[in-house]
């Protein structure tokens, strides 16, 4: 990867920008836009192309004020001028859009999906393709700044801020509103930097917000300082930007700065803008801030020769960078599957991401022990979870626990009772009712070196967070291990004394199929402790499923296995041994399978998988090769439930060992029914499981 050059923006003296540097930076950006549009796209060396013409001057100005040691930006696909100002090199920018090695993603992502791990100043949080996803992660960063300053005592974070950079259409997204609520209720050091070009691709801004002016509409929003201005007037815009940043740095809460700019290009290289009339396009060209800038500072602050020289130099730099990048190799297909999860070198040392999580910020915490040190009476699973959270909060000051109702109430499932009282509301806190916000800010916190433990109150309510969850999972892969966001997402779900489509969903397979998530499905209190601790000390994002029927279920109770106990992911537990059948299961079905084996007297191996991502293929295959028959039992609906994956693997890897078809027992393809009469009829019961076993054995 090309070394990042010295930051182009030195500390501003007084409050005026270094206009020469501004000119140079904008010229670079424009030269890149021109090169891609005119040459690289026609040569098919750049396939997805996004210019930033018209947005560039104000972005460069913004970048020049982001001099806080721990500033961060959540950007979007048109943020390249900002990124260049923060330290993205031309080589890196081109290598990214030309899909070569030496870029930001080793060819795995589009060139304008930026990520800039922090070196000696501001960083850029990994951009995502989905519009609106940049907001709540930046909020998480802002909250982490306050946490590190106030709770961890890191004075270096004081006066740093988070900036979310988005277009006018993005203010209609869920993420924007979640972020707005959070930064104002929490009074966070956060700046919304909205560049309003009047279009979301072709959709005009009056369809995003009434009157097309988000600033005016938010002017009465409590706790938000709103600034509105003309982004095509560089001198005026520079003052507004300076003031907005200073306002937020002062620590009195968030601000929103809206600058109107022209989009002097299509949405992307593909967009021909036929929806704008030629008059509109001409009017936009008139508002080009680049032209305005020249008019404003030449000859007053820069001579015409100096201006031209900077422009020429910039173009030459871009041309030379292009020549260098043309010699970069194409990415190696043999490496394309790497970096979904943390990888380890041959000597066992982890290849830690450049930024994100404890392992990158400090060091891996103590690994813990697989040996249980069980003392005292049995406790139920929810108590086991609470005790584990409590201990990890105690020994790791970067752990934070949050979600709806987890603070004062102690959680609707009682999993966090007493924790806020003990650790304070900076560490254990309630959130607004936005799952997108909960997970989004966990992403930002993780990027800032914390270990966030967000709770999704019920499995089904993860739906609004699906985008943030997916993007978190893919982060390591699409940034080629530059960024990762380890976190533990606690999700209660599954049936309880009754079912229903909202509180009893299981659907854990969604996160197994999703990229980059580890998935834990403890069947008992001891495994819950071990898996939760393993996740809290780990380096990969984890879904920790808390089955509602197991929280206080009698069978699931175990003595507390100790403050050191961890369970390795991908290791099944053999609960019973037999000769004639393999039963593979997890979660609330483990107890039922055990009862069925006992009642039928079947000679069966009973494997509790405990984790589905990764899952213990080796133990499962070894067992099936021995017994030749397999029954898979899970609560999740049958079609494409995780049992289908297991069956497919067995059918391939153990084909010649099978003496009976692989059987799966699961809920039918319906949501969970509310009436217990209906629920009991559709859940795999001990009787049904037992009958399945007998049928298989009789074949």
């Amino acid at each position: 990867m090309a070394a990042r050059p010295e930051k182009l923006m030195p500390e501003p003296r007084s409050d005026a920008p270094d206009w020469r540097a501004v000119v140079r930076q904008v010229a670079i950006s424009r030269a890149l836009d021109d090169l891609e549009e005119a040459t690289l796209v026609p040569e098919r060396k750049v396939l997805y192309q996004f210019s930033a013409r018209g947005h560039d001057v104000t972005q460069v100005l913004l970048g020049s004020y982001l001099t806080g040691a721990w500033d961060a930006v959540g950007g979007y696909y048109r943020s390249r001028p900002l990124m260049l100002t923060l330290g993205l090199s031309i080589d890196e920018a081109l290598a990214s859009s030309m899909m070569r090695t030496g870029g930001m993603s080793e060819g795995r992502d589009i060139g304008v999906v930026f990520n800039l791990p922090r070196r000696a100043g501001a960083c850029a949080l990994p951009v995502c393709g989905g519009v609106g996803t940049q907001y709540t992660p930046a909020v998480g960063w802002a909250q982490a700044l306050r946490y590190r300053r106030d709770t961890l005592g890191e004075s270096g974070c004081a006066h740093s801020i988070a900036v979310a950079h988005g277009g006018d259409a993005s203010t209609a997204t869920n993420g924007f509103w979640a972020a707005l609520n959070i930064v104002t209720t929490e009074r966070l050091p956060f700046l919304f930097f909205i560049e309003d070009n009047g279009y979301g691709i072709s959709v005009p801004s009056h369809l995003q917000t009434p009157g097309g002016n988000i600033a005016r509409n938010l002017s009465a929003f409590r706790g938000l300082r709103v600034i509105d201005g003309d982004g095509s007037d560089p001198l005026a815009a520079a003052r507004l930007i300076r003031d907005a940043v200073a306002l937020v740095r002062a620590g009195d809460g968030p601000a929103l700065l809206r600058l109107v700019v022209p989009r002097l290009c299509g949405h992307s290289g593909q967009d021909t803008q036929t929806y704008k009339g030629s008059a509109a396009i001409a009017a936009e060209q008139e508002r080009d801030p680049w032209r305005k800038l020249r008019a404003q500072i030449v000859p007053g602050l820069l001579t015409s020769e100096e201006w031209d020289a900077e422009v020429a130099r910039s173009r030459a730099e871009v041309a030379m960078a292009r020549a260098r990048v043309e010699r970069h190799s194409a990415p190696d297909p043999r490496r394309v599957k790497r970096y979904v999860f943390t990888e380890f070198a041959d000597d066992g040392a982890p290849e830690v991401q450049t930024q994100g999580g404890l392992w990158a910020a400090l060091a891996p915490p103590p690994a813990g022990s697989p040996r249980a040190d069980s003392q005292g009476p049995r406790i139920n699973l929810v108590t086991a979870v609470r005790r584990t959270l409590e201990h990890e909060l105690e020994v790791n000051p970067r752990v934070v626990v949050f979600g709806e109702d987890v603070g004062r109430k102690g959680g609707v499932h009682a999993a966090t009772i007493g924790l806020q009282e003990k650790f304070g509301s900076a560490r254990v806190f309630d959130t607004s009712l936005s799952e997108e916000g909960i997970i989004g800010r966990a992403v930002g916190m993780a990027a800032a070196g914390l270990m966030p433990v967000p709770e999704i109150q019920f499995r089904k309510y993860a739906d609004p967070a699906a985008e943030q969850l997916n993007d978190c999972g893919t982060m390591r892969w699409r940034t080629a291990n530059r960024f990762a966001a380890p976190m533990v997402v606690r999700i209660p779900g599954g049936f309880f004394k009754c079912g229903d489509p909202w509180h009893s969903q299981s659907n854990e397979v969604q996160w197994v199929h999703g990229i980059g998530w580890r998935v834990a499905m403890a069947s008992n209190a001891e495994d819950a402790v071990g898996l939760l601790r393993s996740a809290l000390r780990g380096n990969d994002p984890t879904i920790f499923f808390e089955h509602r029927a197991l929280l206080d279920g009698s069978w699931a109770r175990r003595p507390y296995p100790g403050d050191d106990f961890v369970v390795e992911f991908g290791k099944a537990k053999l609960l019973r041994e037999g000769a004639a059948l393999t039963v593979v299961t997890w979660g609330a079905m483990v107890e039922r399978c055990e009862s069925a084996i006992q009642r039928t007297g079947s000679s069966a191996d009973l494997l509790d998988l405990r984790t589905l991502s990764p899952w213990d293929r080796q133990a499962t295959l070894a067992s099936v090769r021995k017994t030749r028959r397999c029954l898979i039992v899970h609560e999740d609906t049958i079609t494409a439930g995780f049992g289908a994956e297991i069956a497919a693997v067995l059918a391939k890897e153990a084909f010649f060992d099978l003496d009976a078809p692989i059987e799966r027992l699961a809920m039918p393809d319906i949501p969970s029914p509310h009436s217990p009469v209906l629920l009991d009829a559709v859940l795999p019961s001990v009787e049904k499981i037992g009958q399945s076993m007998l049928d298989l054995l009789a074949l």
Partner: protein
Amino acid sequence: MTMARIAEVIAPSNEEGTKATILRWYKAVGESIRKDEPLLELETDKVTVEIPSPASGELCEILKQPDDEVIPGQVLARVRIASPEASPPESALPKKSVAGDALAAHLASAGGPSAPGARPPLSPAVRRLLDQHGLSPAAIAGSGQGGRITAHDIERHVSKALATPPAAAASRLPHTAIRRRVAEHMARSLALAPHVTTLFEADLTRVLAHRSANAAAFEQQGARLTLTAYFVAACAQALGAHPMVNATYHEDALELHADANIGVGTALGNEGLIVPVIHRAQALDLLGIARRLGQLVGAARSGRLAPQEVRGGTFTISNHGVGGSLLAAPIVINQPQVAILGVGKVERRVVAFDAQGAEAIGVRSKCYLTLTIDHRALDAFQANAFLTHVVKALEQWT
């Protein structure tokens, strides 16, 4: 009454003043329990609460039943505290379930005649095993559903083929009931009684002369006169004079029998050995003995002996010499008797004797007599005395 220490199980205080009722007991009175092991469950409005045992020992009293309401501080149960040794923790190993019995039962019940014409398909495991062992499906009986060949069927077939020995190896003869009885009796007798044997020789000249002279007359009276009859008669006499040899050994006493019920070991060829008994032989003369002996042996050979004809013997004669044996020792005592006489083959032997003061050599018909005694009951003194009497009776026959 022992001074046992008692631990009380106390109802905990309630959260927020909710009511609590007993939901269930995990243990019954009399069962043992370990400290911290779950003892009962209480149900409140909100949650169920598990109460662990305060001590290890025995649950000796339950004071509240399921559905009873409990007040904080109430005594719910009492545990008699055990001695300091804690019971071992429950094994964490996976439990072995009931082994192949369930499987075998299901396989057996599921096996049935296949549908006419249609053979159930071969599974991948079965195909591979057939291939590996070079077997044809036709050679394997299918125990699976519808007559399906299972992998287990092939494995069983293969291991049976390995276990079957080659044709030239030794064959096995199953035991008859008689063989089993004899085996059991012989082993038991030897284990029970210390067997000691004494050896004498009898000159049968006068017995043989008597037999020649009287055989025809006996025959006419329905009695075939054999040498055995003479031995029975001589023994009956000797037993009368030496009652300790006609006895049964008990722990505390020697039971002397009033009658001499003499059993005669009778070979049934390969079928084994049976011992019909001549009851009250002391009351029979030689004719009587010969007649009875003829009846018994005939019945024995045709398998028509009545139960009482083989019971009640007090002494046994084994005529082993009939098969050519000169001498047998020990002879296994017929329990619960204390002695058994073995009669060897009658042979013409060179003897030395005294002829009017000078040593002479002659040839006489002789046989060896062995008496095996139960040395718990008898010593060599009685054994020799008895045998001396028997020999004298035979050698002085008139």
